[in-house]
């Protein structure tokens, strides 16, 4: 079987754009021009009569036919939590609450006809006052996104870990800290889309498309459309990037409903602009707090207020509510803390909803802590590396129970840090920095150290730790792999192939990674869990098949199972390696000639007559220790050398170094690729990416023209080194990775810019550090 890359480069890609069914119709959404308005009247009759229009769905139609979008996380009733779930349908009902919110879906023979019919759709709006800023949204008398709530708080709770009172009592100094990340998200080059078709004979709704998590999607779609889950089948097509932005199939439910109602296959392919307007947004958080420290740089405790701007909600259109939990529990990062107290708020505003984006929530606490490290380093005049080394969890302390309740599996943070320092030439950079300052040139050295939790099993939040994997040898000797690990570009197929190839001794060409569908139970590739849950389950399934093969071969070759080898696609016994079986030969004998009659009696009596094993896996540490929802913790140290032009605010990245410890690595090239990509995304977040709404609540940054991501010219060369501290909890010692690069790079670049601007005494409290902002910070600096 050729690899996915070979297939795509041979012109056999199967992205949603490539999928077609006979008699296919198209779904086009119409979105509100207003950020907040009552829908007084919506008139589709004229449009419905136009040529080639099969149906037009509006909110009221959905109220009749569908369930409201389910709350994918529900924290109501949790002690100490204020939690609200809005009642939301896939299309707007009675009110629109963000710019572009879909008010109607046109199902037409062609997208052109849908475009023409859209002109005839009449909607009368009564604009309402809007609120676009979380801090404003918390004030008295502010416009309310959901009137029935009485305020704009969707979530409010306090996280109290350890003993923060004691920490502050023992402190030598208390420092004030503030940090803000502005709104951004992933927006892979391929936007969302799907094709849905209802098959009346089997009463099955089939849907293919850019579904990052087919099993979840099946669950969600069947709930919304009131279908038994067994009658919904979701198949992931080739996906042009996910990053978490395609986890939940909100708008896809309307396409599926349209297929049922019209009896025709219906395809939806989102435009880039639609994705920006109505896609999941992320980041957009503020921290204000205090840090209690000792003079020698030990960080004792942190008190903070955390405000996350959720847009219209964080509960129904995507799986993101636990991101606030992740944000607050990731604050300790790689360090020992005595106490941590965070007042957390999730505030609704008239912007697109909050979703998942690489990092999810784990990123925010870590970035906050790294900003604190820089602050403490400057205030106490301590070397930033030495400061971190002093506060690190030490290698002998693992498994380490963090005050957040998370149990960190393994790690060697000092080794990672020292490796990074070794590759970089910080001393010579510092010397150069001094020289250049005389000439009015400003270079800066930035550092970040990040711990990335992965492999989640959280209760009541659809992150439950479910996974299934199945390995099956076909009668003609190929190895089929069924996994929940959808390929979104992260190398799932390649690494799954390597894992199975190593265990069964077959060549990659003999392994068939089946498209990921809802037939396989599992949460999908989220939160870097692929190398934890999916791979561990796959290992168990592959080993299960191997056991059966070995049992059979042992009887066949009349040798001890210990002497059976699987290598290069052949099975043999050490007694006589020349006499080997290919998998094809083995499968033929096993299944057909002679088949089960020819199996050893023990296998017959144990009903072990199939070369087909399905397995699951659950994190042993989550089982042993209910306070921890993550399984593995990888770590990385980043060092960046930048130059800032003090007159224009332009930042140039001269050097970038990343040292990574993600446990046992299956494929270093795949891991490197994830690191390069994540770092450049983080650089984009640090320097230019921002979703900006104007005063009318319209999203001004609604295309790649104004949502500025790095080009090949903006991306630096990146040096990577690996350390491997295996996880004691996963089958192969692998750890989830892929998110720490986007977390650490944003922190490292901000840190470097701040270091470059230290002659101006600039403290960076906000990202992105755009050219305009940098210039303003310099101009406003007291040192000038």
């Amino acid at each position, binding site marked *: 079987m050729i690899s996915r890359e070979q297939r795509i480069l041979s012109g056999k890609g199967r992205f949603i754009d490539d999928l077609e069914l006979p008699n296919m119709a198209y779904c*086009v*959404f*119409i*979105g*509100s*021009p207003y950020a907040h308005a009552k829908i007084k009247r919506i008139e589709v009759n004229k449009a419905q009569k136009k040529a080639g229009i099969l149906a037009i769905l509006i909110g009221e139609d959905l109220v009749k036919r569908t369930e409201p979008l389910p709350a994918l996380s529900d924290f109501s009733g949790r002690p100490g939590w204020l939690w609200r779930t809005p009642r939301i349908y896939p299309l707007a009902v009675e009110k629109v609450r963000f*710019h*572009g919110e*879909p*008010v109607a879906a046109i199902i037409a023979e*062609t*997208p*052109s006809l*849908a*475009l023409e019919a*859209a002109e005839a*759709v009449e*909607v009368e709006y009564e604009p309402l006052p809007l609120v676009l800023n979380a801090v404003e949204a918390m004030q008295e008398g502010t416009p309310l996104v959901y009137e029935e709530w009485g305020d704009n708080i969707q979530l409010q709770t306090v996280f109290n870990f350890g003993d923060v009172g004691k920490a502050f009592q023992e402190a030598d100094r208390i420092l004030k800290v503030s940090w803000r990340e502005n709104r951004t998200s992933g927006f892979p080059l391929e936007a969302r889309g799907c094709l849905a078709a209802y098959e009346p004979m089997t009463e099955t709704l089939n849907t293919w498309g850019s579904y990052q998590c087919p099993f979840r999607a099946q669950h969600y779609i069947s709930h919304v459309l009131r279908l038994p889950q067994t009658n919904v089948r979701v198949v992931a097509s080739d996906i042009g990037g996910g990053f978490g932005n395609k986890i939940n199939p909100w708008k896809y439910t309307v396409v599926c409903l349209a297929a049922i109602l019209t009896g025709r296959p219906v395809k939806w*392919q*989102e*435009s880039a*602009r*639609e994705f920006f*307007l109505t896609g999941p947004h992320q980041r957009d958080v503020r921290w204000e707090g205090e840090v209690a420290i000792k003079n020698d740089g030990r960080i004792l405790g942190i008190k903070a207020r955390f405000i996350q701007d959720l847009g219209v909600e964080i509960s129904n259109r995507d799986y993101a509510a636990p991101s606030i939990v992740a944000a607050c529990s990731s604050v300790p990062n790689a360090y020992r803390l005595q106490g941590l107290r965070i007042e957390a708020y999730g505030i609704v505003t008239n912007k697109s909803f909050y979703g998942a984006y690489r990092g999810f929530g784990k990123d925010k606490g870590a970035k906050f802590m790294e900003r604190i490290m820089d602050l403490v380093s400057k205030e106490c005049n301590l070397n930033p590396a030495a400061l971190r080394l002093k506060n690190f969890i030490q290698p002998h302390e693992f498994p380490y129970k963090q005050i957040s309740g998370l149990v960190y599996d393994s790690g060697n943070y000092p080794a990672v840090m020292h490796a990074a320092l070794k590759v970089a030439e910080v001393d010579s950079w510092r010397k150069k920095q001094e020289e*250049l300052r005389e000439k009015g*040139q400003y*270079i800066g050295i930035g550092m970040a150290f990040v711990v990335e939790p992965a492999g989640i099993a959280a209760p009541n939040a659809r992150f439950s730790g479910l996974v299934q994997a199945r390995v099956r040898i076909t009668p003609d000797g190929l190895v089929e792999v069924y996994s929940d690990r959808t390929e979104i570009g992260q190398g799932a197929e390649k690494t799954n192939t390597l894992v199975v190839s190593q265990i069964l001794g077959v060549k990659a060409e003999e392994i068939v990674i089946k498209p990921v569908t809802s037939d396989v139970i599992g949460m999908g590739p989220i939160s870097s869990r692929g190398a934890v849950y999916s791979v561990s389950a796959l290992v168990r399934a592959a080993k299960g098949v191997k056991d059966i093969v070995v049992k059979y071969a042992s009887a066949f070759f009349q040798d001890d199972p210990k002497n059976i080898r699987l290598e290069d696609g052949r099975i043999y016994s050490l007694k006589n390696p020349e006499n080997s079986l290919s998998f094809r030969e083995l499968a033929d004998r096993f299944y057909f000639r002679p088949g089960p009659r020819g199996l050893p009696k023990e296998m017959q009596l144990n009903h072990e007559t199939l070369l087909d094993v399905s397995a699951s896996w659950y994190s042993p540490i989550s089982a042993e220790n209910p306070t921890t929802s993550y399984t593995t913790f990888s770590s990385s140290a980043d060092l960046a*050398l930048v*130059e800032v*032009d003090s*007159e*224009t605010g*332009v930042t*140039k990245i*001269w*050097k970038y170094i990343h040292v990574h410890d993600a446990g046992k690595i299956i494929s270093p090239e795949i891991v490197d690729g994830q690191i390069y990509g994540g770092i450049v995304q983080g650089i984009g977040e640090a*320097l*230019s990416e921002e979703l*900006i709404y*104007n005063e*009318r609540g*319209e999203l*001004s*940054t*609604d*295309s790649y*023209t*104004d949502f*500025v991501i*790095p*080009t*090949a*010219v*903006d991306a630096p060369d990146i040096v990577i080194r690996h350390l491997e501290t295996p996880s004691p909890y996963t089958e192969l010692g692998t750890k989830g990775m892929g998110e720490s690069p986007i977390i650490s790079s944003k922190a490292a670049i901000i840190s470097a810019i701040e270091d470059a601007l230290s002659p101006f005494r600039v403290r960076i409290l906000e990202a992105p550090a*755009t*050219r*305009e902002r940098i*210039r*303003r910070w310099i*101009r406003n600096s007291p040192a000038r």
Partner: protein
Amino acid sequence: MVVNNSLPGNRARSNPMKHFVGSRAMPEVNYHRPKELGEALAMIHEFKDNCILIAGGTDLIPALRRGTVSLESRNLVDLRWLKELDYIRRKEDWIQIGAVTRLSDLEDSEIIRKYAPVLSDAAGQIGSLQIRNQGTLGGNLCNASPAADTAPPLLALRARVLLKSLDRQRVVPLDQFFLGPGKTLLMPGEILAEIQVPIPQDEERFCFLKLGRRNAFTLSIVSVATWVKVEQEIIQGIRIALGAVAPTPMRALKSEEYLAGQRVSEKILDQGAKIVSGEVQPLSDVRANAEYRKDMSYILTRRAILFCVTPNKSKEGDENFTSRGEF
């Protein structure tokens, strides 16, 4: 290309009262392809205001998709095929550039590189390789975005434009061509046919700088083109043109007036550049705010003039001349 555009930076939004429609289809057009210039002029004369001209399409096609350009009549006249408008040639003391010349041809042209390299430099920084292979000089000028990158160098070069209609033609200095964002001097039935650039003399020095939100493939937040003629350390002649800081590409006349005749010194250049920041009238939009644009007008102008007056200064290895380190 004549297009109705709203203000720069706000162009991204459609009419606020209209719905956002997620269709990926292009609106219908009545397409007309004149085979030669005479036929084109006759067509445009007949259609008058009732048509839109297209050459490269790099601005128009996204605008049609978004609905920021109204195409009621749906008449689209394609000038791309007019070979008579696609040329770069030298005629005595002038360079003549056909309006339908691609930006990539402008960038690569031996004539331009030899006689007006600042224009090649600017063209090479517009959009991306793909955009430059499609977009035309005429289109860039007639689209009349205040941020059009070919305008400042052409203004610094004292370019003129040849406008043609069915029954007449006229030559107009480029300084007079732009009337406002998206608005030019072109009358209904008239097209921009040729851009004429007087060939600079040897002792004249030019510089083009632009600043965007990232290091490549970026719209200008501020762009500057300068021409300086220095003899025995006295500024004999100077022109300063800026883009993206006013309703149209503009000349900084007050600054030019101040600097002309002055002896070159850092202090004088700095003061002259500061005057520019008082002359510009930038907007705040999603790309940048007015304060930053004013500030950058000063910074970039100073750097551009400095480049022009410094003998043997080269911009090698640093296209934007905005980063000065070496590692």
